[in-house]
């Protein structure tokens, strides 16, 4: 409970807890949060966790995550829990869940893949081969896409 003292509670927004240690900044990156959007963001890294040993926490004040965003988080922080906070209360709590098939969101790592041809309407679709380490397989070209590939896509 000591960790609660590190960052004060938020009034409205989202707390992403149980992020595998060292991944808080990756979570912010794939959510497209760079710090100049105006809302308060607190990042807590490498704190003790009974479940994970060490974990990161991200608190975003003034923004509630949409469900599509929640599934993106599952890609790089499969253990994360999402807490939606309103008026200092947790109104909704959810463990992120990576589906077996992922459509959209991520691009295939193969530039020669049909899903990377701008003229075509082929939407990226992946089978989750492994959750940890994350490995996705394109259902069109069968190429693997890794966590590193995904992070590169969200780095701008």
């Amino acid at each position, binding site marked *: 409970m000591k960790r609660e003292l590190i960052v004060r509670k938020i009034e409205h927004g989202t707390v992403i807890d149980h992020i595998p240690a060292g991944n808080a900044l990756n979570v912010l990156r794939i959510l497209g949060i760079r710090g100049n959007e105006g809302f308060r963001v607190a990042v807590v890294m490498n704190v003790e966790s009974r479940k994970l040993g060490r974990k990161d926490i991200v608190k975003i004040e003034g923004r509630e995550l949409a469900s599509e965003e929640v599934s993106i988080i599952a890609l790089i922080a499969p253990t994360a829990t999402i807490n939606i906070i309103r008026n200092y209360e947790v109104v909704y709590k959810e463990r992120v869940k990576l589906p077996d098939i992922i459509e959209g969101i991520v691009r295939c790592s193969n530039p020669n*893949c049909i899903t990377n041809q701008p003229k075509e309407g082929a939407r990226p679709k992946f089978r989750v081969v492994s959750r940890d380490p994350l490995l996705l397989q394109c259902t069109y*070209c069968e190429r693997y896409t890794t966590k590193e590939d995904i992070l590169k896509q969200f780095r701008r």
Partner: protein
Amino acid sequence: MSRIGFKNRDVLTILDFSREDLELLFREAKKMEMYSKSALDILRGKVVALAFFEPSTRTMFSFQTAIQRLGGTALILSDVQRTSIAKGESLGDTIRMLDSYSNAIIIRHKIEGAATYAAEVAEVPVINAGDGTHRHPTQAMVDLYTIWRERGNIHGLTVGVLGDLKYGRAATSFILGIMKYRLRRLYLISPPELRLKSEIKEILDKYGVQTTEVSNIEDVVNELDVLYVTRIQRERFPDPAEYERVRGSYRITLKTLENVKEDLMIMHPLPRVDEILPEVDGTKYAYYFKQARYGVPVRMALLKLVLGD
């Protein structure tokens, strides 16, 4: 893919076909050999579209001949149409157009996954005549048929696949096809930089197939029953000097064959450049011209099974 049989089925990857499927295809292909110079009417009144977005004379002629021998009509996308499509219209729209005219679409495309996408767009069956770097199911069917036809059996053989195993779609498809049989040994012979992609290795692992990767053909050639040769392309090497250094070691000459098994079969999907020297052509080991001739009956059998009544 639990659909059984061939009727109205998409042919996208050799992985989708069981040994029983292949056996059925081979028996049909053997019957078709009789009709390689005459006509049947199995596809009478049917139109098969040949959408070759990437040129391939051999595969295209082979399909075109198969369609004609079965009494069907081949609708061929011309070079001019192909280039105009390359500039403007999307693949999806072209496939939709062909879908409305034809009973099946045969597609060849350099983009990976193009055939799978075409099959999603089209209502008629789509046959992949090669897409990207690892799928070429009908070539694998022809290759496996050649061994089945010449040896009577594929089980128990020691097979070596030589060349570009990373980008060569014929080699990869052949490996994914032949792994379905209980081989004695499967040797993957290539320069270290052209070994199988991990995606493909994991499929082999999943099927419990043991392979041995080697860099020198000399180390294993005398053990082989089948040697499947493919081309190593210069552009695959970032360093041209490296290409020059390795190419000689992956070339089959009479000297390579000095102590091989009496009934070794050397195969090649053709066209070749210099990976098998012409001096090998006259030996009893050379099966690649025969293999090429089996292209038509195997594709006839496939079309019959997919489209016949």
